[in-house]
């Protein structure tokens, strides 16, 4: 049986991608941002998921105004990086997992989430920037296949936070009904507070962001009741994309271990937020998920969790320049 073992929340600021692609990661401004992801990369290298589901939004790259699907699941074998005006980002082609993706599509549609199926799609920075932040900058191929789930947050209204959370739960049921033993990590991307349009551009609300991260970890149901108006008012017109994090959260256990958090302002126009949440019964690496049931295993598992808690790092830095 496949299993969702952990969730990752991460901003997907395009300027982070540009900094990576143009070798600016050592500049103090960018070092402040990238240093917050060093431990995350180590966590990801250790966790070694078999598949990643990445919830993100397209930014007028694959979808123009001709079609605006609310939820679009990438079922293709591969997804080339899109040309966003400066040539495609120099990152490997993203390989999909068509079999699991098709299974998820079938399962969630019968579970009353009417997804759009996408069999040909290019992916932009919304997807590839969080992958870089967690997987580093591999030259030839990403370490695992990826199933992109594109959410409309460009045209109002995006799906509600509650709808996103419930979709996460449906995705979890889908994954858990897949027969192959796969360890799956799910990403929620975008945010945190930012507004990039109109005279109010530049809005950042760190207080609101921190409370969002706290609730994401401890009381996600509270977040599902936030109306769109509040996201836009408090976290900026474009901050509304934070609803995508609730898909990730819905796919996890009600109670999770927060193993890492990072927050910094700004990256370009945006507050950068990042969190890693593990399901309590995260299967040990390389072990059959079923084996974790034995008493000895669960004891070892407990020790592992304790170790993980010990290494929890909470970093809250601000722009220092």
């Amino acid at each position, binding site marked *: 049986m496949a299993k969702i073992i952990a969730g990752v929340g991460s901003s997907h600021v*395009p*300027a982070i991608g540009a900094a990576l692609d143009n070798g600016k990661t050592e500049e103090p401004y960018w070092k402040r941002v990238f240093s917050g992801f060093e431990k995350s990369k180590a966590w990801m290298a250790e966790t070694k998921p078999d598949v990643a589901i990445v919830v993100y939004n397209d*930014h*007028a790259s694959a979808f*123009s*105004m*001709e079609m*605006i699907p609310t939820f679009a699941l990438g079922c293709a074998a591969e997804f080339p990086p899109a*040309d966003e*005006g*400066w040539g495609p980002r120099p990152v490997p082609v993203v390989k999909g997992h068509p079999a699991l993706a098709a299974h998820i599509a079938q399962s969630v549609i019968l579970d009353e989430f009417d997804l759009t199926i996408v069999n040909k799609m290019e992916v932009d920075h919304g997807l590839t920037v969080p992958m870089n932040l967690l997987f580093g900058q591999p030259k030839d191929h990403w370490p695992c296949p990826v199933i992109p789930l594109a959410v409309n947050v*460009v*045209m*109002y*209204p995006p799906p509600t936070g509650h709808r996103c959370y419930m979709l996460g739960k449906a995705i979890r049921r889908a994954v858990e009904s897949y027969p192959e033993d796969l360890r799956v990590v799910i990403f929620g991307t975008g945010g945190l*507070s*930012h*507004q*990039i*349009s*109109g*005279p*109010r*551009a*530049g*809005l*950042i*609300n*760190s207080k*609101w962001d921190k409370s969002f991260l706290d609730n994401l970890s401890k009381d996600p149901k509270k977040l599902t009741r936030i109306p*769109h*108006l509040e996201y*836009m*008012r*408090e976290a900026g*017109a*474009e901050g509304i994309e934070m609803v995508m994090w609730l898909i990730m959260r819905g796919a996890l256990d009600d109670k999770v271990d927060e193993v890492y958090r990072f927050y910094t*302002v*700004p990256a*370009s*126009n945006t*507050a950068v937020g990042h969190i890693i949440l593990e399901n309590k019964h995260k299967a040990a690496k390389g072990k059959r998920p079923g084996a974790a049931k034995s008493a000895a295993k669960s004891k070892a598992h407990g020790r592992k969790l304790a170790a993980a808690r010990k290494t929890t790092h909470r970093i809250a830095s*601000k*722009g220092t*320049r």
Partner: protein
Amino acid sequence: MARTQQDYDDIPGTFVFDAERSREGFGINMFCMSLMKDANRKAFKADEAEYLKKFKLTPDQTDAVLKRDYNRMLELGGNIYFTAKLGATDGHSFQQLAAMMTGSTQQDYAAMMLGGGRSVEGNRSRSGKVAKASKASAKGPGKAKPKSSGAKSSKAKSNAKSKSKSSAKRK
């Protein structure tokens, strides 16, 4: 013809790209999308008004594009992820565009961001109806009032400056 009033119209300095604007702005956004191709960028640059005719814009929309009035484009149905492509065609960085929309210089805008961004205090509500904003709104709501960018520039500029100072204090 008049736009349906929405609860989010109360957010100052913000044009929410909703279904109504999406319908109205289809031409602007598809024009911007066309600028993803180099040949189209060249054709547009060679004769802007002529090129725009292909996209069935209203006279107001055409005017906003030709004048690079980004706030007006948003008001008339442009979406920021699309209009940013016009900015890129002009060789502007995104931060330059943001500075233009806020009526600020790029330097001031960048300084504001480094100082922690524009504070939400005083920027929640035009009507001042939102309780949390009541204190800040005493200074007058709509500091970031949606109007054409040019006319407001000096006021918005000083606003951006004072914001960056106040958030720097928070450090």
